[in-house]
């Protein structure tokens, strides 16, 4: 089952919740980084 190894495995509701929170946090972090890049360009 090599294909199944491509997916992150989470074993509990808490781990799934933490993973989704990480997705939301990653999006916000990425947005901040992009805005910083934009601000640098604008200067």
């Amino acid at each position, binding site marked *: 089952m090599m294909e199944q190894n*491509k997916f992150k495995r989470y074993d509990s509701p808490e781990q799934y919740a933490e993973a989704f929170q990480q997705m939301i946090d990653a999006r916000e972090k990425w947005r901040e980084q992009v805005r910083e890049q934009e601000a640098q360009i604008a200067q």
Partner: protein
Amino acid sequence: MTLSADILNQRSPYKLSQLGEFTFRFVTDQDIHYTVGFYKDTIFMDDGAYHFFIDNSEHEHGSYDPKILDVVTVILEEFFSQEPTVMLYICDSTDHRQAARDRLYHLWFYEYARSHEMTLYSDSVTFKQVNYYAGILMRHDHPLHDMILSYYQDFLKHVPQLYVPREK
């Protein structure tokens, strides 16, 4: 995956400037500045999945501009023309317009995309008392299509304490 502004600008109605490896900016006719692109996923899959985002830093809502959807189409067509890739998204909920954003993905999918070649699945997820819309896009011929879709649906079902299936 490689995304180049030089290649995208051959078809994009707005001139794209490359901010990062998969990130671009453009300015609309209404002088609204957008950033658009992808960042690599490390939470759902080990490899081959990217989160899509489009953002305007001033949160301005100009009048309807079809060129923005044309820009998105050019970028996504290039994205999906390369090796088998998976696109993920979570709609921004900070201004409570996440449902409208999810509808835009569906509008784009059915009006602009080669939807007969692709799968779009999205669902609403109530997580920590906030309603999110999360989705996945991939080509039908992705070698792991069925497995990825099944894992993604399973992932979303396990996330919230309160799971609210999307109304069809």
